[in-house]
């Protein structure tokens, strides 16, 4: 657990990078510092492992003032991941990951073994261990950077825009990986980004900083979307707040209605439609696509898997949220979202107004902050 107590960083030329920051980072959770350039988020992060020392206030790590610790020793207990990875070009990937264990006195063999485990943990093939950083792609280098930070199993992990320098597809992948890792590891993670969507996606709690180093709001992502503290936060959070907020609400209360399906191979004459549409499914009752009434009438004898109208995201009933439910209804050509269970088989249909009704109910019961 990390506490900032009235922490200030002022430079000799007068610039105030961080202005009297009071913040408590929860242990075992991902806390994201987000804000525009010059808001002090990176400075605040780098004060935790004493890469920068505050000019005022103090920072406590598990109740102990970090100024009492020798910086190199403090840092060996904190993982540090930066944007350009900063891998040592002159060492192999495996030796890079082994760095901190070796620093803390592990034997070379133990350190290398641990390194190999970590490469696997971050989803990299073992052969990559023998290569040099220059031979790896940007995404691979970032993963090695994360592995290196985790090598000594530190309780705290600091990440400074680690995914900003890779392309969106790789970034998405890395974000998913981080969430998966965290569900196994439960580290205290402080993550800095300038991307509000990344903050909302990853953070258990998000701290929004404004230019000049002041904290604007510190809340959960859903609170941030539903109740931004002021104009700055609401404009920083961006458009479609309402829609994006739906992803934080479970769709438990949304009723799944009956829906007409027909298996591939059924005689065209026997197929029925409801409101002009029918879902075509395979033998395991998994959806293949939509068939309109007109298309049905032009078919030959049997219903096939060809010529179906695809489209519409699927709504999973066991772990869905309101946003997913609404999206499945809105994106379906028939106006009805296909609801599936854990095996992917069709269990029913979702209508958009059912979702809105569920939202209104949630408001009434207080689930959604009014």
């Amino acid at each position, binding site marked *: 657990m990390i506490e900032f107590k009235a922490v200030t960083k002022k430079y000799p030329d007068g610039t105030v990078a961080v202005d009297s920051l009071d913040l408590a980072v929860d242990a075992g959770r991902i806390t994201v510092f987000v804000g525009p350039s010059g808001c002090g988020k990176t400075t605040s992060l780098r004060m935790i492992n004493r890469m920068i020392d505050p000019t005022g206030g103090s920072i406590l790590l598990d109740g102990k003032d970090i100024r009492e610790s020798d910086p*190199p*020793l403090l840092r060996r207990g904190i993982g*540090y991941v*930066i944007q350009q990875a*900063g891998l*040592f070009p002159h060492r192999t990937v495996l030796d890079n990951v082994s760095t901190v264990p070796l*620093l803390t006195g592990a034997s070379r063999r133990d350190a290398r073994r641990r390194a190999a485990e970590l490469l696997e943990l971050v989803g990299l093939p073992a052969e990559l261990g023998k290569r040099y950083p220059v031979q790896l792609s940007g995404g691979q280098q970032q993963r090695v950077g994360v592995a290196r930070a985790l090598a000594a199993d530190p309780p705290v992990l600091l990440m400074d825009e680690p995914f900003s320098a890779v392309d969106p597809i790789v970034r998405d992948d890395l974000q998913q990986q981080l969430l998966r890792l965290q569900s196994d590891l439960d580290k205290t993670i402080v993550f800095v980004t300038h991307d509000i969507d990344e903050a909302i996606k990853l953070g258990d709690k998000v701290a929004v900083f404004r230019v000049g180093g002041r904290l604007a709001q510190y809340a959960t992502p859903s609170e941030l979307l539903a109740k931004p503290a002021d104009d700055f936060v609401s404009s920083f959070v961006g458009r479609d707040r309402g829609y994006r907020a739906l992803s934080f609400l479970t769709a438990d209360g949304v009723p799944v209605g009956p829906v007409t399906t027909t298996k591939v191979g059924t005689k065209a004459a026997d197929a029925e439609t409801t409101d002009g549409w029918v879902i075509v499914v395979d033998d395991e009752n998994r959806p293949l696509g939509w068939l309109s009434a007109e298309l049905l009438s032009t078919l030959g004898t049997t219903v096939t898997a060809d010529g179906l109208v695809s489209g519409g995201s699927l709504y999973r009933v066991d772990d869905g949220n309101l946003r997913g439910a609404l999206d499945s209804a809105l994106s379906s050509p028939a106006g009805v979202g296909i609801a599936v269970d854990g095996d992917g088989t069709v269990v029913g249909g979702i209508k958009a107004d059912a979702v809105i009704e569920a939202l209104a109910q949630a408001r009434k019961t207080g689930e959604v902050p009014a």
Partner: protein
Amino acid sequence: MDPRTAGGEPVNSALDWLFNPDHWSGPTGIPTRILEHLGYTALTVVIAAAIAVPIGAIIGHTGRGTFLIAGLSNGLRALPELGLLTLLVLLTYVGLLPVVISLVILALPPILAGTYAGVRNVDRAVVDAAQGMGMRGSTVLWKVELPNALPLILGGIRSATLQVIATATIAAYVALGGLGRFVIDGNNAGAGSPDGYPQMAAGAIVIAVLALVVEGVLEVVQRLAVSPGLRNAATRKRTSRIWRKPTPELVGKST
């Protein structure tokens, strides 16, 4: 002394002198002189590196004292090595020490500049990551900055070595050995003597060949000594820096 103007004659007499077996044996023979020459060079470079690499590394690591790098490089390039050598010998005595001191002084700038540039050019993100994971300053310098600076440090040492090989030819003028001996003795032998110009030219050929061979060997050593993870980066950085200004390690010519 006139080596005659036609092309063939002087070349032949130079080659005759060069391949005369008498000149390949004994304390005044070519092999001895080569060894003497390489000896002066090795001694000088080792001493100069022992001085310049630590200083250059510390200046590069801390960023303080950079005036030393620029000042020494420019100043010492303008100093005539013949003058330095002979003056020092005159002021002290005829012997190895004053010669080696002069040679070391002239070898310092390329190594200093190369080491400084090498340490400075290490990616700041790499240094930041090293500090962030808990390495002490000295460890960062020793285990991260210096290995990554190795290509440019070796470049500086290479440049210094070539320079010393060239300057060591002058050592013969102050009664020492080395390959300059043939040029000086040949010059003193006078007109028409078979040990006159032919000896000078033969000596010059050996000097040139030795310099080229050493350069070739050092090129290979440099490639082998650098971590495979740095090989492409090293050449990239060298060529991208060349056009900005010719740094001493690339143009350390003083003799």
